[in-house]
């Protein structure tokens, strides 16, 4: 057994042992608040067992291992439906960026340790009503205020802001220069006066994203994590940190074998749906697509093991998998006919077709829409030209609204 196989076996055994306390059955029927409390205990257990901050430095409470160990653990962890969703963003982007760019190292260490143990949660305040994809077009502004800064404006789609203790934020500090040159990156205390969080109820019924309003929120200059005007580079660095995450060729929806089981159960025209050519074609096409992603991901893992950088084809995962999950979920409802109406708002998108279907659009939009991903593939991988951008090089305050 290689070191990595041993690591994965250890991860699998630990995850298995956590199922009675933190698994799907233990979470069933809990309110969000109770589930979050359970999640905090799970995160602490993970930390104590040496599975938190796997690829983070040991002096900050991490394990000092590689991306590959982290991904291996995540692949095991995601089999069980543990309450870890509240910490995904926090430990995925804001806290790593704090580790990298936080100016006060003692403060950084204290925050990182609390976040790793589930005591504190961080959010990422990037998107705004005026634009998500067009990040550099943001309007929330920070003006100098004595020795510090004063923030006014609004962020939106901020995951878990209602439970967050801190956030990282990009704001405009100079509207007289080109849009991406006038931004600065800070961290903020989400409990500070002037910060208002308002949850947004999403189509599927849950409210994990929020609007966040800033009204004269005062922060000192030691909150600054980039040079003044240098915030865009740190924002990009934030988005690059999470390249090495576990992927799922089912698009974080139900796996294909559940669809095959359904097709064997229900009848179409008096015979099992699995005998119907239309259904068979969909199964076969989905299998071929998902097998392709699986193979891409295995190869990416092998490249990491060999010390190489995985190829750009990994960028296909989210685009291809979530889109197909959406269609397959529609088809699963079709298959059930009138039986497909039943809806449980608290069901998991990973094993419930209606839940998977209603939440699929979020997956195709959040973290880069399909269209944005296609642009990225076209421009970065294939060398095709950028879209026409009328705001290019123009001072922000002169861009026609």
């Amino acid at each position, binding site marked *: 057994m290689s070191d990595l196989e041993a690591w994965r076996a250890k991860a699998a055994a630990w995850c298995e042992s956590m199922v009675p306390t933190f698994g799907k059955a233990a979470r069933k029927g809990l309110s969000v608040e109770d589930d979050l409390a359970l999640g905090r205990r799970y995160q602490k257990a993970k930390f104590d067992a040496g599975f938190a901050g796997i690829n983070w430095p040991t002096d900050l409470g991490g394990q000092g291992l590689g991306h590959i160990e982290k991904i291996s653990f995540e692949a095991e962890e995601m089999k069980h439906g543990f309450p870890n969703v509240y910490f995904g963003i926090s430990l995925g982007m804001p806290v790593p960026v704090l580790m990298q760019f936080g100016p006060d190292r003692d403060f950084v260490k204290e925050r990182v340790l609390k976040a790793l143990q589930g005591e504190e949660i961080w959010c990422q305040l990037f998107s705004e009503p005026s634009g998500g994809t067009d990040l550099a077009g943001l309007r929330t502004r920070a003006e100098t205020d004595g020795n510090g800064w004063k923030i006014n404006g609004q962020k939106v789609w901020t995951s878990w802001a209602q439970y967050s203790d801190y956030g990282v934020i990009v704001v405009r500090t100079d509207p007289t220069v080109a849009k991406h040159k006038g931004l600065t990156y800070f961290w903020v205390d989400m409990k500070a006066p002037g910060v208002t969080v308002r949850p947004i109820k999403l189509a599927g019924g849950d409210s994990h994203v929020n609007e966040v309003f800033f009204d004269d929120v005062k922060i000192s200059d030691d909150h600054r994590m980039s040079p003044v005007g240098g915030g865009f580079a740190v924002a990009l660095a934030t988005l690059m940190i999470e390249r090495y995450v576990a992927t799922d060729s089912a698009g974080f929806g139900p796996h*294909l*074998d559940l669809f*095959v089981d359904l*097709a*064997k159960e229900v009848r179409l025209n008096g015979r099992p749906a*699995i005998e119907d050519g239309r259904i*068979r*074609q969909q*199964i*076969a*096409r989905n*299998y*071929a*697509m998902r*097998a*392709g*992603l699986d*193979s*891409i991901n*295995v*190869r990416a893992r*092998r*490249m990491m093991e*060999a010390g190489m950088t995985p190829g750009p*084809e990994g960028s*296909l995962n989210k*685009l*291809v998998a979530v889109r197909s999950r959406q269609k397959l979920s529609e088809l699963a409802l079709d298959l059930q006919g009138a039986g497909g109406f039943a809806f449980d708002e608290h069901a998991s998108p990973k094993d419930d077709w209606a839940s998977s279907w209603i939440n699929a659009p979020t997956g195709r939009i959040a973290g880069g829409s399909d*269209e944005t991903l*296609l*642009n990225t*593939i*076209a*421009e970065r*991988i*294939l*060398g*095709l*030209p*950028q*879209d*026409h951008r009328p705001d290019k090089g123009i001072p922000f305050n002169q861009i026609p609204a």
Partner: protein
Amino acid sequence: MSILYDEGQQAIATESRRALEARVSKDELLPLLQTQGAYHQPFWATAKEQGWTALALPEAYGGLALGLIELGLIAHQAGRTLSGAPFLTSSFGAAKAIELYGSDEQKARWLLGLASGETIGAIAFAAGPDPLPAEPMVTLAGDRLTGVAGAVSGGLFADVAVVLASGPSLVLVDLTGVDRTAIDSFDNSRCIADLSFADTPADTLATGDAARAAALHILALQAVVTAHEQTGGAEALMEIARDYAVTRKAFGQPIGAFQSIKHRIAELYGLVELARANCIHAASREDQADFITAATAARLSATEAYDTAARDCVQIHGGIGVTWEIGLHLHMRRARSLALEQGSSFFWEDVLVDRLAGDEA
């Protein structure tokens, strides 16, 4: 588990690409479309010289004892350059059938020639639209074969064929003296012919369920080689489309700056990479229990990639794309001929779903 190509395998890819790009040109391929009974001689000469015909065959019979991974890499390059003969796949299928199911005597008689490329092999399993018929139309009585094996790729020049005959039986047939009728097709260099057997002597390789399983295995081996070829063709088209989109201008900018164009090409990238990943995986599973499933995924995604790339690449070119001269129709034609050889997507979808549903015979 999938694999990463090692240095030797990468060298095979580079060298075969160099050899083919130097020897194959669209100007020589275009006239073949309007010629019956001819293939692109320089391609086949290159394949023999470079030892590609011997690549996946056993050393004892003049082979190089490499496998599907290496042959797949060659096929990928052959797909990129639209190489003008089907024999790399058809001879490989026939040779594998002889290697896996033949007697020592049969191996001694045929494999050396197939490995050197002097002998050309073909596979004749299909009956009409069915690539693996339960009731083959060619009948075997004693050791004599009678009936017509329709539309055999490479059949016009094959010296030996592996035929699925009544029984079912998988048989080996020396094609010397067998009547062949060339089929005028949209891709004539595939050398497709009806083979007419009349009391033709045949050696049995397998019978009953074993014959059917053997035929499916051979078909799957060929399908993986073909899938690499399709992926190569799709990759070439994606690059041709990209190159055109960055140079051709309309409304004052390269057409590749329009999302209707750039997204179409990005989607092709996705199809090509999924097909490539499935091909690599399938080639690495040759002797494993899940080989047929892996082969099927490769086959389905590669067919989709090549057909879509052919469609979209022509569309992105606009008017110039439909001219004879530019030759994109060579890829359109090849995409379709490769989609039909080794069984259409309908066939492979059924093979796959039978396995996923646990119903395979």
